[in-house]
């Protein structure tokens, strides 16, 4: 039995559009603020998770991308929780929410630091929210780089699969700053070469890069 790493699911959210495995599954006909768009997406997919509304925008983005990604590949939820990991990246870290937090402390006359906003001033809270929801306890790490860096993701994930029992890693890019947002997440799984791999791309740097750019 020869197992190889494959990209088994892809979800992208940008420009008021959500696509799953290359096909558009939700879109808004006109440009609306990202927060509104994400809430509409949440409702359209009938997600039942009230804590979604407490999240900052970038967590909503990452969370929703994963909800839809796993909706298209529900077998991931059958893996033991310790064997699913999350490796994410972006370029602005949590800057969008850092700015919101600063609004609550900048005025010495009206000074009320918000603990609920502060909690989100770290990019890996995106991973935290995903893992709390799905109980994923495997490896998790967050890279910050100027542009999407398929090299670091590929090498890190390949190593995780080579040296641990991990069965699935969710990886990609979750970026949001002011009006710009762009998420691309995929599931990487070990699969037998001869089974059900016809439609899946092999997990390598070139494929990861091409899918992101498509």
């Amino acid at each position, binding site marked *: 039995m020869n197992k190889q790493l494959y990209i088994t699911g892809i979800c992208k959210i940008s420009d008021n559009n959500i696509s799953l495995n290359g096909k558009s599954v939700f879109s808004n006909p006109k440009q609306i603020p990202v927060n509104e768009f994400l809430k509409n997406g949440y409702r359209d997919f009938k997600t039942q998770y009230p804590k979604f509304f407490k999240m900052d925008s970038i967590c909503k983005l990452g969370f929703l991308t994963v909800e839809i990604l796993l909706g298209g590949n529900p077998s991931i939820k059958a893996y033991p929780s310790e064997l699913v990991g999350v490796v994410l990246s972006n370029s602005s*870290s*949590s800057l969008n929410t*850092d700015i919101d937090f*600063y609004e609550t402390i*900048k005025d010495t006359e009206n000074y009320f630091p918000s603990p609920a906003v502060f909690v989100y001033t770290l990019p890996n809270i*995106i991973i935290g929210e995903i893992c709390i929801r799905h109980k994923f306890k495997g*490896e998790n790490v*967050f*890279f*910050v780089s100027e542009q999407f860096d398929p090299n670091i993701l590929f090498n890190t994930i390949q190593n995780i699969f080579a040296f641990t029992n991990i069965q699935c890693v969710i990886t990609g890019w979750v970026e949001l700053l002011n009006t710009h947002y762009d998420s691309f997440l995929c599931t990487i799984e070990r699969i037998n070469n001869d089974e059900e791999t016809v439609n899946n791309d092999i997990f390598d740097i070139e494929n990861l890069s091409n899918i992101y750019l498509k």
Partner: protein
Amino acid sequence: MANRVFITGLGIASSIGISPDEVLSSLISGKSGIATLSLFDSVYKLEIPIAEVKYINQQLFDLIGVKSSPFHSRNTLLGLLAVKEAIKMAGFLDSDLSDFGLYSGTTSGGMDLSENFYRSFINNSKAGRLRDIIHHDCGDSTAVIAEELGIHGHVTTISTACSSAANAIMCGARLIKSGYIDRVIAGGVDALNQFTMNGFNSLMILDKQPCKPFDNNRNGLTLGEGAGFIILESERCINPTSNKILCELKGYGNACDAYHQTASSPDGKGAYLSMHKALENSGLDPSDITYINTHGTGTVNNDLSEGIAMERLFKKMPYYSSTKSYTGHTLGASGGIEAVISILSIINKKIFPGVQSTQQMNELKSSPVSKLIEDRNVNHILSNSFGFGGNNTSLVFSVC
């Protein structure tokens, strides 16, 4: 077969010293760096103790030997100081570094620059120079350090809250093991700023007295700042018998607690998993561990969660303590600073106690080390760094 990973250099900037020798001296004499805030003005100045690096930016410029520039954030300065120290200890010149990797962990990046800019800007939108804040981004201090030192191998930044530096070290080690790169500078840096102080204060987890990790009456954490970096070298490019080698990075583990954005699970599942994975990865048994450098922040929640996890994993508890009672909680830098301290413990055959902690926790059967232990073979150290978002990392350092 995976390449072994050796450590050949250390660099540190913290409230208890800006070199490994100074830090060692403070640890031996039990001298904590926690004091009153002096770096900037704050309404909390007299209320909340803090562990600052005792040098202002101008002094850091002079120490590093770089021309003073308004564009260098305090993060960059602390990071440069520590990275240069580590490189020097490992016997490399700046001209040797082009193939090196640089992996740095941080949470607040160049926040201090933006705060300085904002103070002028908020009163007058024409005041303040906008270009001062282009070095705000998390990844910027890493990029500036790489450029300053001619590091071109592979450079990236990791931001996973308080496990950032530990994850940077883990990332470097794993890329060395898989043959992607041979030499890496890894660690982290976080400088103090108002954003961080205000934020942590709003969560009501700051102790109004110096922190008391694993004490029954502990009341929260003490914020600190600093940088800690180590040089990792692959066995492909260094002889295991070389006298440059300080110790080995034997293994590592990371897991997600998956419980809450900022609180740790009551049963310490995430902590247990990361420690267990690190031991498995190292090929060691719990009984092999001499000492645990705990995450030990001093919050009611963390210390209970971590304590329960440790007592579950170790039938016989090794020595353990939290050196955050000296350095404060240095957030994104803590994994790097504590890596340096762990390695100092191994090479000097000493086990450093916590200071300020005196009462055993009711829930635990064990207590942390309370007095310096000397002339003790320290064979294997487990170093924990647990971050918000449930990101838990454990590293194992071993004597060579």
